[in-house]
């Protein structure tokens, strides 16, 4: 969707921000329309202005020269500037920021008493079950683990019944074990509630798992923007040279084999096999293929242990900006782009060139949802 189309729909978050950080040279300058459905990731290195952008939208940062509106409700323009407590948002901070004098449940009740009564996105029962926090509700924040605290904070932000949920690196303060503990809750949350989410992160891994749309910031400006699937496969972006560089493939389960424990995922003319899980024939799924798991071969000889071998054409390739001995190659399986990260030597040996037909061998495929 282009910004023009979205403006016509009026179902968007319009953000025009010009904000000078207090006592520093940092300027945030953004003019965009974000979708108000699904998860929009705000991605970028630290210091790129992600958190400042979120704080401006929330009204926690004063920015006189900004215009912010959600579905044509102006939150901020030259005439009005709603204070944070009048904006229909929920906010999840990096640290849980629970009220230390209240129990977990009282923290939730604090939100319920002040919630927007005119519309409801989730009930108390739904939220405590979704985030599995029932056993810890009677405890004080100081008695909870970091992961439990963050789950309470997410529940609290949802129970205010926001029209837009802002999440500022909700996993950044947690160690990797706790991250893995919370990510599944976030995935469930993003897909079970209809609420639009702005998700700030510097972790490409989290963005790939959660986001539908992506806004990439660099030094206070928008560097890339668009739906996540095409954006991820673009060459020359800051994240295509990232070690986690990946593509997403959406497809349908067309066949399953209990004997081999495999499911067949079809997209266009192509099929890949994935480890069988709880999915059923006919399900729409999204999988992630990391560029470092894709290798290239000229022959179609079926003499490898790798199951997923796709016939592809070479669309484009580029030298890695950080590691000049590596190449990022963009392949097309039908219309579906796949990235492969190969050494410059291999590219030279295989005499890779645009338009060439190749076999892409995919070592592993991660099921997202």
């Amino acid at each position, binding site marked *: 969707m282009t910004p023009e189309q979205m403006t016509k729909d009026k179902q968007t978050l319009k953000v025009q921000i010009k904000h000078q950080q207090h006592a520093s040279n940092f300027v945030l300058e953004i003019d965009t329309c974000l979708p108000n459905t699904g998860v929009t990731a705000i991605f970028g290195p630290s210091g790129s202005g992600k958190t400042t952008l979120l704080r401006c939208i*929330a*009204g*926690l940062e004063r920015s006189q020269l900004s215009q912010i509106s959600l579905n044509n409700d102006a939150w901020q323009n030259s005439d009005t500037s709603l*204070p*944070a*407590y*009048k904006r229909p*948002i*929920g*906010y999840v*901070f990096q*640290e849980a*920021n*629970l*009220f*230390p*004098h209240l129990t977990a449940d009282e923290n939730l009740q*604090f*939100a319920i008493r*002040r*919630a*927007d009564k005119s519309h409801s996105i989730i009930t108390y029962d739904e939220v405590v079950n979704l985030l599995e926090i029932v056993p810890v509700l009677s405890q*004080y*924040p*100081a*008695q909870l683990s970091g992961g439990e605290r963050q789950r309470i904070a997410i529940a*609290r*932000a949802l129970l*205010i019944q926001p029209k837009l949920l802002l999440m500022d690196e909700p996993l950044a303060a947690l160690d990797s074990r706790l991250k893995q503990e919370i990510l599944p809750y976030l995935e469930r949350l993003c897909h079970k509630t209809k609420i639009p989410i702005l998700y700030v992160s510097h972790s490409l891994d989290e963005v790939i798992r959660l986001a539908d749309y992506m806004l990439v910031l660099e030094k206070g400006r928008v560097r890339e923007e668009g739906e996540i699937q095409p954006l991820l496969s673009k060459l020359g972006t800051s994240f295509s040279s990232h070690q986690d560089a990946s593509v997403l493939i959406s497809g349908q389960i067309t066949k399953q084999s209990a004997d081999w424990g495999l499911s067949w995922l079809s997209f266009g003319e192509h099929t890949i096999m994935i480890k069988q899980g709880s999915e059923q024939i006919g399900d729409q799924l999204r999988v992630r293929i990391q560029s470092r798991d894709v290798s290239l071969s000229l022959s179609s000889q079926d003499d490898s242990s790798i199951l997923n071998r796709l016939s592809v054409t070479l669309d484009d390739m580029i030298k890695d900006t950080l590691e000049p001995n590596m190449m990022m190659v963009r392949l097309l399986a039908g219309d579906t782009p796949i990235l492969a990260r190969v050494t410059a030597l291999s590219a030279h040996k295989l005499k890779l060139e645009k338009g060439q037909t190749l076999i892409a061998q995919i070592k592993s495929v991660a099921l997202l949802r």
Partner: protein
Amino acid sequence: MQLSSEDIDAIWLTLKLASLVTFLLILISTPIAWWLARTRSWLKGPINAVVAMPLVLPPTVLGFYLLLFLGPEGPAGTLLSTLGISPLPFSFSGLVIASMIYSLPFVVQPIQNAFLAINDKTLEAAATLRSSPWDCFLYVVLPLAKPGYISAAILGFAHTVGEFGVVLMIGGNIPKETRVISVQIYDHVEALAYEQAHSLALMMVAFAFIVLTFLYSVQKRQKNKSVIGDIL
């Protein structure tokens, strides 16, 4: 231990004065402490200094200037007399005003420290939960600052009970009006009535000990407050 009826009057007067002063100080110290804890204004330093001045000035200096200021010739005194209000020096009301100034830092500072200890992020979290500034103050700031308020009330009360110099300067020695315990003890000693002085003086020592013990136990509990919950 023998207490004369005059001693009892002095005790009652002291308790009345200290309670009223503590109550009024808590009310006016709250906005002052909030402003001092949150402002970035250049006025913060000077205002902090003014609030803390009674800590370093001899009570006689305070009493002297209050006497001049509130007296019939002073600016406040003339204003009051044109309004038909009797002069404040050597009256209970005058004593209340003098005591409030004298005890101000003991009430402002614990409250200010309690406000400072509240994380800005906690207040931002409240704002994102549709809590207006007033609502946030009532339901987040005050409960979190409760130990500070308890310390402030104890210190303000105890310090008012313990004052002497200011009382003598502005209150004088009028029975049931301005003759508080400390002045009564002074009178006993002047009259060489050591026995009676002892009764009151020992009472004051015991009072100070009990109050301070309680204060330190409050502060100790405050440290692990969030673990054991909000008992206070």
